[in-house]
């Protein structure tokens, strides 16, 4: 049985299923946007980031997603400042049980009590480059937090549009990891050390932790040195623009992306929904679309709306679109089926 947590514009949906048969088994936060929901693999606790346009971003947790949810504390910016927390983009568990949350304006929080209370990472908040930080179209969003298996506290972050950030000491100090990234949206003579870099997604290969894949705002990249430097691997894709990204935990040479046509036309290219897979670290890409809409299907798949569980031939893939459709593949992308249709616009999909 696979359980999916689907964050939508109008609440959290829980889907349960096996093979190609899925059903909606719960809806929570009715009417409220749920930007992201996940289950902590250590505690089994569920989390949902509700992004109310009226009441601001709130994080809730529950032991049963169908039961009572409780609000977490501490997800706020310093009272003496001139900024407020605008949005929560992601939550991630590190190996030592620490939870991290990323949000707008480019902020990182951590929790060491299972997500009940949170503290702002001051080193990133007070970083001397912060006055130069520029937001992307979705705001100044810290959307990707990538721990290192076996090395708690060694994190890579992706912030739009402030590049890759690295720490080896659980966020006490930070450095850039931007070498090799070429932003086409800046002039050719822009400084080589610019940090105005619109990272869209970031994932690490668990079995080879120094290998990461990154979806950029125009470009797909691979790093073989722990996100210090990057090599372009977007050749062979119909478009190197997009947001979602997953990897097969069994294969460090694997990655899956869902290209969108272009930054000015953020829909699946040629009205054809296809996931693209590499098994050679980006040297080549193969379309995986059997069972996905192939004609007049102009879908938009958002950053957090693609996830996987299992590995190898048993890798299950799931993604949702702003059309309200959720698709699944039980065989590593070989075939696809609709897991849900006509939900509200899908913001995130995570396997519980």
């Amino acid at each position, binding site marked *: 049985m696979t359980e999916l947590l689907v964050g939508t514009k109008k609440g959290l949906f829980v889907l349960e299923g096996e093979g190609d048969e899925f059903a909606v088994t719960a809806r929570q936060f009715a009417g409220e946007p749920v930007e992201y929901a996940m289950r902590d693999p250590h505690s089994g606790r569920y989390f949902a980031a509700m992004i109310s*346009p009226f009441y601001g971003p709130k994080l809730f947790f529950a032991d049963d997603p169908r039961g009572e949810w409780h609000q977490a504390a501490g997800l706020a910016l310093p009272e003496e*400042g001139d900024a407020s927390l605008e949005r929560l983009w992601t939550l991630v568990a590190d190996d030592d049980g620490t939870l991290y949350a990323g949000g707008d304006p480019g902020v990182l929080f951590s929790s060491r009590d299972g997500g009940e209370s949170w503290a702002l990472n001051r080193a990133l908040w007070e970083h001397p480059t912060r006055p130069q930080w520029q937001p992307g179209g979705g705001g100044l969003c810290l959307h990707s937090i990538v721990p290192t298996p076996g090395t708690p506290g060694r994190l890579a972050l992706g912030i739009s549009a402030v590049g890759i950030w690295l720490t080896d000491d659980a966020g006490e100090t930070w450095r850039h990891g931007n070498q090799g990234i070429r932003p086409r949206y800046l002039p050719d003579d822009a400084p080589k050390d610019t940090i105005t870099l619109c990272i869209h997604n970031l994932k690490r290969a668990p079995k080879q932790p120094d290998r990461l894949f990154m979806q950029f705002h125009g470009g797909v990249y691979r790093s073989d040195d722990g996100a210090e430097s990057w090599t372009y691997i977007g050749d062979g894709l119909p478009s190197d623009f997009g947001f979602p990204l997953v990897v097969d935990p069994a294969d460090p040479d694997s990655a899956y992306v869902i290209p969108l046509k272009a930054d000015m036309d953020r829909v699946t290219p040629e009205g054809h929904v296809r996931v693209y897979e590499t098994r050679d670290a980006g040297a080549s890409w193969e379309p995986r679309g059997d069972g996905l809409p192939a004609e007049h299907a102009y879908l938009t798949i958002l950053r957090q709306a693609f996830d996987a569980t299992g590995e190898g031939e048993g890798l299950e893939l799931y993604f949702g679109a702003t059309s309200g459709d959720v698709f699944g593949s039980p065989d590593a992308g070989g075939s696809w089926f609709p897991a849900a249709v006509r939900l509200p616009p899908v913001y995130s999909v995570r396997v519980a």
Partner: protein
Amino acid sequence: MTGALVRLRGPLKQLAGGGEHELAGATVKELLQTLEQAKPQLDGWILDERDRIRRHINVFVNGERGDENTPVADGDRIDVLPAISGGSA
């Protein structure tokens, strides 16, 4: 009546455990801060971390639109409502 009457609706009413709260304070901000102290579960829902009324919440004092700094007096009615500007399809 001693103090002003703060009236809440919807999820704010649920969080506060009631829709009407008689509170003392010289301004809207003071009233809302007092309300948050009495009902900590409301912390961050009306005022943000800068103690500003959230962008898509409207506050009315005796039927007239107010802000954090609007003076209030005993017997005033303060309605806290979601703004129509915050909703979209």
